[in-house]
């Protein structure tokens, strides 16, 4: 006699638990619950990628820059991708790493901002809240062994305060007056530090832009996955402003003098 009503009228499988010894919730099923379970794969590498993002604090707020390239391996696949996006009125988000994951994150943040807007309670999320939300999101995903493959910079200005912080695919966070992701963390970060540290409260917007331009130029010379088309975002008390695409001034005449490899004969 099967004493479990849930089993009545169902085909019986004597091979498994013929005497109904398991409680109902724990009863072993004889078919896999999800036939595709074995086929599920987690992100193991980024595919279409963006390179460095740079950001600094200055007198009136925060300035951020990133180029317009999304690479497919070493191929410069998409040359008009915007990697700096506004999140609400006070925040800008810059992303390096997997661009599809970045688009997914944008969708999540858009949902979040609409939720907050619909509450209609007069409160808005600022850069600190957005950054904390992202850090929880990134850490939760890495803990499922399925990270969102990005390094993100969150910059903003709200209630008279500047904010600039980093979060990456591991959920690691840190904050500083200059930040850079990707190749820029190696090449541009030292330049930014020497130009900005100690002068955060005196640098004007024009001076800050100059520093960013110089660093982006160096990065374009050194980083083989970069582009000379880029955008600058500024967040001040006036809100978020993201520039149109700009072109870097570069000169390659020095290449003529390089000897030792390449096409020259001597």
């Amino acid at each position: 006699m099967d004493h479990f009503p849930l089993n009545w009228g169902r085909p019986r499988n004597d091979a498994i638990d013929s005497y109904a010894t398991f409680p109902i919730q724990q009863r072993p099923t004889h078919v896999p619950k999800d036939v595709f379970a074995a086929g599920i794969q987690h992100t193991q590498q980024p595919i279409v990628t963006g390179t460095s993002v740079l950001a600094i604090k200055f007198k009136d707020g925060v300035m951020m820059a990133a180029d317009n390239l999304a690479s497919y391996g070493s191929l410069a696949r998409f040359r008009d991708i915007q990697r700096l996006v506004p999140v609400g009125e006070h925040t800008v988000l810059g992303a390096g790493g997997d661009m599809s994951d970045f688009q997914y994150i944008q969708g999540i943040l858009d949902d979040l901002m609409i939720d907050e807007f619909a509450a209609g309670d007069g409160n808005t999320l600022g850069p600190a809240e957005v950054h904390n939300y992202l850090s929880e999101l990134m850490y939760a995903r890495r803990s499922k062994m399925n990270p969102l493959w990005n390094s993100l910079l969150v910059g903003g200005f709200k209630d008279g305060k500047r904010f600039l912080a980093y979060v990456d695919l591991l959920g690691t966070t840190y904050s500083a007056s200059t930040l850079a992701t990707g190749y820029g963390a190696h090449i541009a970060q030292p330049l930014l530090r020497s130009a900005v540290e100690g002068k955060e409260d005196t640098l004007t917007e024009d001076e800050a832009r100059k520093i960013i331009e110089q660093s982006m130029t160096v990065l374009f010379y050194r980083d083989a996955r970069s582009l000379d088309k880029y955008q600058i975002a500024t967040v001040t008390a006036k809100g978020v402003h993201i520039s149109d695409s700009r072109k870097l001034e570069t000169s390659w005449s020095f290449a003529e003098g390089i000897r030792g490899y390449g096409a020259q004969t001597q």
Partner: protein
Amino acid sequence: MTSIGTGYDLSASTYSPDGRIFQVEYANKAVENSGTAIGLKVKDGVVLAVEKLVHSKLLVPGANRRIQTVDRHIGLATAGLPADARTVGNRARDEASSHRDFYRAPPTLKTIVDRIGQFVQVYTLYSSVRPFGISTIMGAVDKDGPSLYVIEPSGVFYGYHGAAVGKGRQLAKTELEKLKLSELTAREAVIEAARIIYLVHEDAKEKQFELEMSWIGSETNGVHVPVPQDLFDEAESKAKEALVSGFE
């Protein structure tokens, strides 16, 4: 109420012999007991206004809002049971969010109203549930321009140029008909909306009310927000003036 005592009004899943569903009609009664809500679809936007009856002086001003935001560009005003309004509002927000998930684009008001209409209708089908005691005015400015709909407790919905639900709807509708809605700007419509709400309010019967107004239009960048304080004050004082001059 000839229906009472016949036994055909006990469940929303039973017709009366002449083909009516009394529970739905009772739900309409719940709407009629509520303060008036109106919506105006004009040239460059939509305006929503509500006569929120204040049942206690102990309430904090601005409590128990009857205008909700569904998506950035969609607003919702209700007349009827406030708790039912929250349920429908939450559902509408879920629908808007899932539309964005599926299509990566903001929903048009029509698609949301369609879903909410179905949602409300389902509550007229079973004996285990009660129909919603609210009529919902939804307004939006989407890719097709301004639009305005009313969803009734039965689940039917119609598009309108101007809509009124609740206690003073008859008078409000006559006032709306006098306006040239398609030539008005949203700013002008706010003034008219306040005037109509003040006009339909029955001072003798009801003690107090709060005016609640929101708008979506070119001036708000297509976003649903409460009417800014300066415009609100202007509309309110003009409404009071119009009321006084109307009596003379």
